[in-house]
Each structure stands twice: as structure tokens, then as C-alpha cells.
């Protein structure tokens, strides 16, 4: 268990998702069981691409971001900026301290800009008409730096670039930073933008769904699942030390009480069930809770055959078969680096509404995923603690525990 660290609370959340702008919209649509996935535009123009679905953010007006900041923002930078504004507003931190820092993760630099950059570079053997700010969108910390610039932040900038675990990893790093007393408030989360290159990459390694119906394509834990559906968006959360939040009477929506991250070096793509179980056990140890104290698990569960099985077996090992488990990816698809943050926002909503939500498209549970409790309907139940998992290619795992705040 951790030492006498500062307690860390979440005081505001913001989201841009394939449903559109706003955390309330995201939570409402997920609560209603809606699916955010649609046809993949232009997919038929890409040779050998079998993917038919994607979760794209509807067109949003970014003109409220001044041009001097917007010019260096990739699409996911814009998503993150709009989500950050919402999070600060919900945290009643419009007059935020400018020495605030941030921890925002992305899978990698902007894939859309990389495609544009290399198309121009390779066809013209030069920069051609590329704008001066192109490179800033490709930088690994491009989203974090453009966010810091647009908000005028002078605190630390942490930008984990760790594929699909990046968002939850950033939140975990933020939690540890505040808990250790090195910062009072941090903006944390993750952002992702869709590019057909991403879908093609997952298709190439046989991890993407080919299902023709977008509404049925993403099927976590289902026997008939055939891979993940790529999506985009951004989730940002305001993390504060409890004394700081109390001193300004901030609206506390949850407390982060445990976090762990580890690595399974045995295989680049296949998740390691034992390593995932260790990660969840370490997060429980960090929180001081036992498995019996956790009332819900929001799984990473991307709907790949191997990933869901490894996570399911790990959950069964640590929690047994009674704790309800779900995945939001049946509705949202895999928002990659944004998934940890967006799904944590949904988990907070689930906890505060005492309503466990089912996994969309889960019809026949794959028995190889272990003996899990995977409800197929919404359930009203008291939820005081949730574990959220995120994992990434390269064997990086992260587990985070939130609890209802109690003085």
C-alpha cells in the first residue's frame, strides 16, 4: 500500500467523442445504449482494406480557438482543446492557475498530418506547400504542447506516447504527481484522431473487424467478435489534491485511490494474462482495497480474440466471477489513446448514477474469456468503487481505481 500521500480527486471532465461535443452527451448516449460507429468513408479506395466501420467525431466548429493556437493543432489537438475547456468549466476552474501542468497522452503524432507530410515530401522531394506548423502536429507531444500553449500553462507537460494505454497512463501519472505533492492541479487525459492508416495497420495485423454493419461490428467478449473498430475523440479530466479542491469548494465527482502500470515483454502484440492480473492486483494494493470492495470493472476489451481472452482470464483470477464487467467499445469503438479517459468519464457517470451498463453486441459470451459476470442489461446497483483497465501494443498495462468521494 502507498505511503501517506495526498488524496487526489477529479473535479471536472470534458469529452469530444464520435457522438459529438460534451461529456454529458457522451454519457447520455452511452446510457441509452446508442452506437457511435458508422461506415468508414473512403475505405474502398484503400487496397486490401477489409474494414467497413469507424467512429468519427462529427464536424465541429473550432473557430472559437484563436488561429495562432489552432494553426499548430492537429484534429486530435482540437479535440483535446475543446475537451479541456469543458473540463475546466465543469471544475469551475475558468480562472485556472497558470502554473497548472498537464499530462495528455496520444498514440503517436497526428497520423493525418504524417500522411499529408510524407505524401508531399515523397512526391515533391521537399516541403512543397506544407505550412510551417506541420511538424508541430507530428511531434510526439504535439497535443500536450499545443494545449499548454493555448491555455498558457507554465507547469509540467507530461506526454506519454504509449498507443492505446496512453490516456489512462497520463491520468495515472497525473494522479502520482499530485499524490506525491509535486503539483496541486493537473489536466489529464488522452486524444486520438482517426486516419485510414490506423485502420489499415490494425487490419494488417489481423486485429480489425471486417463486419459489414457498423452498429454490430464491435463486439467485446462476444463469441462472434472479429476485431476492433477504430474511433477518435478526446477525454480530459481535472485532477486536484483534495485540500486544493476543498479550499475552493470544487465539485468533486470522484476520487482516484489506486493506480498501477507494468509491462509484459514476452510478446509485442499478444496480451499477457498473468501480467494484466499483476497490474490489477498492484492497483488494488495501491488503493488499499480488496477485490471484494470493487463493485464494477470497466474492461479494456477491444473485441480482439486474444485481448479479450487474456483480460477476461486475468479478471477472473483477481475478482472471481461475481463482479460485473463491461466494455464501452461495443458502442464507441476503440478510441485508442482517448479510450482510457473517455471510458473513465463514463465509469464515473456509471458510479455516480449507481447504474451498471451492459456491453453492446454481447450476445453469446466467449467461454475462453473466463467465467465472468457480463450483464446484458442495465442494472441499478450501489457502486462505490470501479476498476478501469487500459492496455497497449508493446505489452504496456495500466489499471486505475476510482471511488466515490467521502470526506
Amino acid at each position: 500500500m502507498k505511503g501517506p500521500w495526498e488524496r487526489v480527486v477529479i473535479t471536472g471532465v470534458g469529452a469530444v467523442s464520435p457522438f459529438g461535443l460534451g461529456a454529458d452527451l457522451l454519457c447520455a448516449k452511452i446510457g441509452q445504449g446508442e452506437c457511435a460507429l458508422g461506415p468508414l468513408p473512403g475505405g474502398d479506395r484503400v487496397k486490401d482494406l477489409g474494414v467497413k466501420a469507424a467512429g468519427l467525431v462529427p464536424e465541429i466548429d473550432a473557430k472559437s480557438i484563436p488561429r495562432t493556437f489552432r494553426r499548430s493543432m492537429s484534429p486530435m489537438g482540437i479535440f483535446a482543446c475543446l475537451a479541456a475547456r469543458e473540463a475546466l468549466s465543469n471544475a469551475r476552474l475558468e480562472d485556472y492557475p497558470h502554473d497548472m501542468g498537464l499530462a495528455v497522452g496520444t498514440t503517436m503524432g497526428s497520423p493525418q498530418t504524417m500522411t499529408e507530410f510524407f505524401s508531399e515530401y515523397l512526391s515533391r522531394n521537399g516541403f512543397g506547400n506544407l505550412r510551417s506548423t506541420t511538424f508541430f502536429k507530428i511531434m510526439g507531444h504535439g497535443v500536450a504542447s499545443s494545449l499548454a500553449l493555448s491555455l498558457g500553462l507554465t507547469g509540467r507537460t507530461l506526454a506519454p506516447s504509449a498507443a492505446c494505454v496512453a490516456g489512462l497512463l497520463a491520468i495515472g501519472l497525473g494522479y502520482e504527481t499530485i499524490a506525491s505533492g509535486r503539483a496541486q492541479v493537473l489536466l489529464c487525459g488522452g486524444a486520438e484522431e482517426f486516419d485510414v492508416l490506423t485502420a489499415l495497420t490494425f487490419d494488417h495485423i489481423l486485429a480489425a473487424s471486417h463486419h459489414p454493419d457498423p452498429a454490430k461490428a464491435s463486439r467485446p467478449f462476444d463469441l462472434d467478435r472479429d476485431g476492433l473498430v477504430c474511433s477518435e475523440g478526446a477525454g480530459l479530466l481535472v485532477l486536484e489534491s483534495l485540500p486544493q479542491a476543498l479550499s475552493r469548494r470544487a465539485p468533486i465527482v470522484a476520487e482516484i485511490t489506486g493506480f498501477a502500470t507494468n509491462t509484459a515483454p514476452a510478446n509485442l502484440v499478444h496480451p499477457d494474462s498473468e501480467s494484466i492480473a499483476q497490474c490489477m492486483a498492484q492497483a488494488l494494493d495501491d488503493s488499499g482495497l480488496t477485490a471484494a470492495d470493487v463493485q464494477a470493472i470497466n474492461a479494456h476489451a477491444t473485441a480482439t480474440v486474444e485481448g479479450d481472452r487474456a483480460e477476461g482470464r486475468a479478471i477472473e483470477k483477481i475478482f472471481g466471477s461475481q463482479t460485473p464487467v463491461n466494455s464501452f467499445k461495443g458502442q464507441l469503438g476503440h478510441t485508442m489513446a482517448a479510450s482510457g479517459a473517455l471510458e473513465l468519464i463514463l465509469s464515473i457517470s456509471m458510479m455516480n448514477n449507481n447504474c451498471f451498463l451492459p456491453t453492446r453486441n454481447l450476445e453469446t459470451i466467449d467461454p475462453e474469456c473466463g467465467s465472468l459476470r457480463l450483464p446484458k442489461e442495465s442494472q441499478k446497483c450501489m457502486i462505490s468503487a470501479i476498476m478501469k483497465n487500459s492496455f497497449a501494443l508493446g505489452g504496456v498495462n495500466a489499471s486505475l481505481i476510482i471511488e466515490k468521494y467521502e470526506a
Partner: protein
Amino acid sequence: MPEKIWKTVASAMIEEFELEPGQMVPEARIKDDLGLDSLDVVDMVIVLETAFDFKIQDKAALKKIITMSDVVDFIVATMAAEKVEAAGG
């Protein structure tokens, strides 16, 4: 001032840098009045090259540009030099 060139420059500047038409006056200073910084000036060159379909070779001359009027003068001079070059002069 050649009106056609002025209109093309003003239109390109308004579009690229989201400026107001009312800001497009000959005496407007690129940096101090229109708010462009060094990165914007790089993009201004790209935009002007596209608008007038030529390549600006004399990048050093760009440093002397202060106002919108200077931009137009620079374009006129560049086009005249191109004509001379095309004529084999």
C-alpha cells in the same frame, strides 16, 4: 498600385490568416497591425507562391517587407523579374 495584384494578395491574406477585409489597407504592417509572426511569414510566402504560381527565390528580400504595400511591390518586382528571365534577359 496594381489593383488585380492587390486583390489577389488581400484575398489570400484574409483566407489564410482569417483577417477582416477592413484590415486590408496598404499601410497595414504585417506583424504589428495584422499580428503575423515569423511562422506566419513562412506561410505567407507559400500562399503567395500558390496564388501567383511562381517560386520566390529571393528570400532575403522578404525581410524588407513591413507593410501590405511592400508585399504588393515585392510581387510586382518578382513578376517583372520572371518576365525578364522568361524572355531570356
